[in-house]
């Protein structure tokens, strides 16, 4: 399981990186960030990039900072950076909660938030976060910068709206209001495994009723997304069992679950109902 041969490049600036991408993308040139997703696919020779553009040496890319009302996560920010909340308020806590379910500690030392997003594995927790919280994905190439809303960014399994010569330089997540409730539930077979299904929910309360609900489902369909019907069913209701169950059922009915030899669509659908409800219960604590 040794990877196929490739040429290796280590740019020192973003400009160099995108120039290399522009030149080598036609020869399946790819970005190497954390490598925790890419390198295994190369070990199986499912991916055979002719060129790797290693961006780990670009200082500007590992920043995580608040800029106005968005948290800006640079291309080389590692999963482990989120172990402790990166900002005050619910967003930092939400990210610190989610990161605990991402793979394992050593993977988190190297793997990157943006790398996860660009890789677009349906089971990726960060992809679900980006989709649920309406992140903006910032792509750069030799042609300049492009802002892509998360809802348009994830197209299908391992496929995003990024052009082959684009680098995902940053992901911007709108900060959450200080009184935002959130809940995250994931189901997998063993500690640290890929999610078979997961649910991320947020809402606020106004006069004891839920407003601005976000219900995101990941791991179950070919891409993560907010389930509008489920959110609608939740809005304006008190945070209680009846509302949660209804929203969960609506979410489960709304999805088109993936199926494979191990996991049936029906089972995934059932999980989505369970996890959505449990995430809502968690959020209401």
């Amino acid at each position, binding site marked *: 399981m*040794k990877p196929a*041969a490739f040429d*290796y490049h280590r740019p020192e600036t973003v400009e160099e990186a995108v120039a290399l991408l522009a030149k080598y993308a036609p020869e399946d040139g790819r970005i190497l960030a954390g*490598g*925790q997703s890419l390198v*295994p696919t190369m*070990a199986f020779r499912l991916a055979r990039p002719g060129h*790797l553009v290693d961006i780990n040496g670009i200082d500007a890319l590992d920043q995580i900072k608040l800029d106005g009302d968005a948290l800006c996560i640079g291309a080389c920010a590692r999963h482990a950076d989120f172990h402790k909340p990166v900002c005050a308020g619910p967003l930092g806590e939400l990210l610190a909660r989610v990161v605990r379910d991402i793979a394992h500690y*050593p993977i988190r030392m190297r793997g990157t938030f943006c790398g996860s997003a660009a890789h677009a594995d349906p089971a990726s927790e960060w992809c679900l976060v980006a989709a649920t919280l309406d992140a903006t994905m910032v792509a750069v190439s030799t042609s300049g910068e492009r802002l892509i809303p998360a809802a348009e960014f994830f197209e299908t399994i391992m496929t995003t709206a990024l052009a082959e010569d684009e680098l995902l330089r940053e992901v911007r997540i709108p900060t959450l209001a200080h009184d935002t409730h959130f809940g995250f539930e994931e189901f997998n077979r063993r500690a640290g495994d890929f999610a078979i299904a997961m649910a991320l929910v947020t809402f606020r309360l106004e006069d004891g009723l839920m407003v601005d609900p976000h219900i995101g489902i990941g791991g179950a369909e070919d891409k993560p997304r907010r389930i509008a019907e489920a959110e609608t069913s939740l809005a304006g209701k008190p945070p209680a069992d009846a509302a949660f169950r209804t929203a969960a059922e609506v979410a489960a009915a709304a999805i088109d679950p993936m199926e494979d030899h191990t996991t049936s669509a029906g089972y995934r659908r059932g999980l989505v109902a369970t996890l959505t409800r449990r995430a809502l219960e968690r959020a209401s604590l």
Partner: protein
Amino acid sequence: MIKKMDINLTVNGRSHAVSVAPRKTLADVIREDCGQTGTHLGCEHGICGACTVIVDGAPVRSCLMFGVQADGAEIRTVEGLANGNELHPMQRAFTEHHALQCGYCTPGFLMLATSVLEREPDISDDDLLDVLSSNLCRCTGYVNIIKAVRAAAAEMKEG
């Protein structure tokens, strides 16, 4: 003609100037070009953790990095844990608590546990177990690994 790149790795304090193809994994570079075979390959796709080493202070799976990425890095492997003849508390704990049988996963566990305790000496027991669940062992059933790491953690905290 395979294009090789000249890189410099410091492994357990010793500098290795080697010439490797970019696709050669860090694990293979450590084992072959640097001659340190204590780091083991269990799966080569980043799941089992037998290949865990410490790179610039962080525990990483060396099968998921390329050697060329570690140019200029400080790498610690199991061969560098002991201080001459004096075993590291983690090593002593593993043998006192029978935390190894075949020994194949052991270097990965030793480096993972040592690294996380160096980085987070006050880590909670539950978080420590989470970290240890990163690596696979097929012989011991883990119970003694947990005992050993807890014992070493206590000793490392004192010392």
